[in-house]
C-alpha cells in the first residue's frame, strides 16, 4: 500500500513535470529547425539534415512526399516543374486523369516504387531543382541549426538597442526600488513616530488601487512633462518606493533586535548611519529578494513600455519580440520567433537557477505574512 502510494506520487510528479517542461522543449526544438521542418506535420522533435543525389552529386536537399506505387516522373507541356503521376494514368504520351481531358506530358523517367521500397520527391534548398529518387538513397542525420539564434537577432531589428534599453531600465529600477523601499521601510519599522501606523495603513491601502484607475492620469502627467517617448516614465517612479517592497522589507527589518539601534544611538550614531551601516547589511537577503523581483518585473513588463514608448529605438525586448510577430512579411517565421523567445527567457531562467532560494523564500513571505 505504501509502496503503491509512493509510486503513484512519483508517476504523477514525473508526468506533470513532462507537461510543464514540454512548452520549453518545444520552443527550443523549433528554434533549432529550418523553417520547413518547423512547419512540418506530423512534427519531429529534432532538426535533421537530409542529403541525396541531385544533379549528379550528393547535396543537402529538402525532402518532399513519399511515392509508394509505380509512377512516372513527367513534365506537362508548358509546365515549369515535373510531377509524379501514377504509371497507369499515363498512356501514349498523355496523362489521362479519371475525370477531365487528357494532358500531353513528356515522361522523364520511370519510378518503380512500391510500398516496400518507396521513392521520395526531393528538391534543392531554394526549391528550384527537383527530382524523385529511391527513398533509401536519401540520408538524414540530426543537425541543430544554432545559426538560427544570430539570425533571429538579425530578424528582430535593433536587438542590441532593445537589450541595452531593457538592461538600463532594470538597473535603474533595481537601484531606485532597493534604495527608496529600504529607506521608507526603515522609517516605518525602526523609528517610533506619531503618524507612523496610520500612514503605513495608507501605504497598504494603495496596494489595492488597480492600475487602470491611475493609468490615464499618469499618461497625462508624463505627457505634460514631455516624457512620452522616453524611458523616464518607466523608471523615475521606482525612486519613490513601492508599497509591496516596503511591506516586504518592513517585515524583515522588524526582526532585528531594537537593542542594536539603541546601543548605536547611545554611542552617538545618527539615524541614517544606523540605517546604512547596521540595519542594511543585516538585511541583505531581503534586499536581494527585492532586487530580484524588481529585475524580473522590469524584464517582463509589457504594458508600461507599450503605453509610454513610441519610438522603435527606445523599445524594450518585450516590445521587440511582439514587433517580430506583427511586422513579418507573409507568415510568421516560427523558428526565428522561438529562437528570439528563448533568448528573452534565458536570462530569467539563469537568474532563477542561481538565486533559487531567495526566490522561494520571497514568494512564501508574501503569502504567509499577508
Amino acid at each position, binding site marked *: 500500500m505504501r509502496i503503491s502510494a509512493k509510486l503513484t506520487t512519483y508517476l504523477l510528479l514525473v508526468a506533470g513535470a513532462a507537461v510543464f517542461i514540454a512548452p520549453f522543449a*518545444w520552443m527550443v526544438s523549433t528554434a533549432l529547425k529550418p523553417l520547413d521542418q518547423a512547419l512540418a506535420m506530423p512534427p519531429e522533435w529534432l532538426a535533421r539534415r537530409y542529403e541525396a543525389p541531385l544533379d549528379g552529386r550528393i547535396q543537402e536537399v529538402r525532402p518532399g512526399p513519399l511515392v509508394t506505387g509505380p509512377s512516372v516522373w513527367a513534365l506537362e507541356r508548358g509546365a515549369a516543374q515535373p510531377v509524379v503521376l501514377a504509371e497507369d494514368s499515363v498512356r501514349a504520351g498523355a496523362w489521362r486523369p479519371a475525370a477531365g481531358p487528357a494532358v500531353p506530358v513528356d515522361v522523364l523517367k520511370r519510378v518503380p516504387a512500391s510500398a516496400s521500397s518507396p521513392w521520395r520527391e526531393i528538391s534543392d534548398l531554394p526549391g528550384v531543382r527537383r527530382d524523385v529518387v529511391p527513398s533509401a538513397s536519401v540520408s538524414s542525420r540530426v543537425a541543430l541549426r544554432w545559426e538560427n539564434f544570430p539570425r533571429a537577432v538579425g530578424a528582430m531589428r535593433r536587438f542590441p538597442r532593445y537589450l541595452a534599453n531593457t538592461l538600463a531600465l532594470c538597473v535603474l529600477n533595481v537601484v531606485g526600488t532597493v534604495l527608496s523601499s529600504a529607506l521608507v521601510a526603515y522609517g516605518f519599522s525602526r523609528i517610533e513616530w506619531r503618524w507612523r501606523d496610520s500612514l503605513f495603513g495608507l*501605504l497598504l491601502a494603495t496596494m489595492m488601487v488597480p492600475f487602470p484607475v491611475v493609468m*490615464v*492620469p499618469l499618461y497625462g502627467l508624463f505627457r505634460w512633462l514631455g516624457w512620452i517617448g522616453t524611458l523616464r516614465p518607466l523608471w523615475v517612479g521606482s525612486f519613490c518606493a513601492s508599497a509591496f517592497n516596503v511591506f516586504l522589507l518592513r517585515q524583515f527589518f522588524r526582526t532585528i533586535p531594537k537593542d542594536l539601534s539603541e546601543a548605536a544611538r547611545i554611542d552617538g550614531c545618527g539615524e541614517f548611519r544606523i540605517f546604512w551601516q547596521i540595519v542594511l547589511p543585516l538585511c541583505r537577503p531581503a534586499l536581494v529578494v527585492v532586487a530580484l523581483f524588481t529585475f524580473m518585473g522590469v524584464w517582463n513588463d*509589457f504594458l508600461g513600455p507599450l503605453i509610454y514608448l513610441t519610438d522603435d529605438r527606445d523599445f524594450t525586448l518585450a516590445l521587440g519580440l511582439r514587433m517580430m510577430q506583427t511586422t513579418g512579411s507573409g507568415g510568421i517565421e516560427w523558428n526565428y520567433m522561438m529562437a528570439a523567445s528563448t533568448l528573452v527567457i534565458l536570462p530569467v531562467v539563469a537568474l532563477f537557477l542561481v538565486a533559487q532560494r531567495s526566490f522561494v523564500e520571497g514568494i512564501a513571505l508574501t503569502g504567509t505574512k499577508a
Partner: protein
Amino acid sequence: MTTGDRQRTRMGLAFVSPWIVGLAAFTIYPIAASLYYSFCDYDVLSKPVWVGLLNYRDMASDQVFWKSVANTLLFNVMALPLGLVSALALALLLNQPVRARGTFRAIYYLPSLVPAVASAMIWLWILNGRLGLLNAALATVGVHHPPQWLADPAWTKPSLAIMSVWGCGNTVVIYLAALQGVPRSLLEAAMIDGASAWDRLVHVTLPAISPVIYFNLIIGIIGGLQVFVSAFIMWGGGGPDRSVLFYAVYLYQNAFEYRQMGYACAMAWMLCLLILALTWLASVSSRRLVFYQGD
C-alpha cells in the same frame, strides 16, 4: 509632544519622504484626476470638458462593454477554480517526501517566471490549429478534428485558462509554505485514530491552510479581473467574435486607440467597484469555511 517626539517624527517623515512624494504624484493625484476625467469628455490632447454622468450612461448601453464584462467573468469562472485546484494539487504532491523534490519544485515554478510576451508566443505556436504541437499530440491519440484553439470563439478562453495553469508556480509556492505550517501533531493524531489520507486532507490539512486558499482566491479575483497581456498579445483587438475582449483590453483600447480617455476612466472606476463587490462576495461566502488558528 516632547522635543524627542517631534524630532523622531521629523526623522520618520524624512525616511518615508520618497514614498510621500510618490504617493502624491503617482497615486493621490492620478486617483483624483481619474475620478474627475470619468465625468468628462477627454482625449488628452485638449482640455477635459465636463459631461456629467454621460460616460457612465454610455457604458450602460454599450454592447461591447457588456460583452467585455461577460468575457471577463466567464474566463474567471473557468480559470480561477482550475488554477486554485491544480496549484493545490501540485503543492500537495510536491509536499510529499520524494527524491529530487527541489528539482521538481523548480520545474513547476519556472513557467511562472517566463515573460508574458514570450509565453504568449510559445502558446500561439503550440495552440496553432494546423501546425501546433497540441493538436499533433491529439491526432496521435485519435482526435482527428481537434479544437481550433485560437480561431474558435468557444475555445479561446479555455486556451488562456490552460496557459494560466502552466504559470501557476507562484500560487504553488504559497500553498507549499502553508502546507509546511500544518501542525504535525494534528496529522499524527488523525493517523492514530485511523483517518485515511483523504480524510486527513479534508478534515485537517484543508482547514489548516484555508486562510491561504482564501488569500489566493482574493489575489486571483483581483488579478483575473484585470487580465490583459496574454489576450492582448495573442489576439490584438479581441479575437474571434470578440471572445477574448476582456475588460482591461477594452479599457486600453478606449484609452489609447480610440482616445476616449474619459470613458476609459469611467470604466476603470466601474472595475474598482466590480473588484470590491466580488472580493466582498468571496469574503462573505467563505466566512464559515476559513478557519484561523488561535481564534
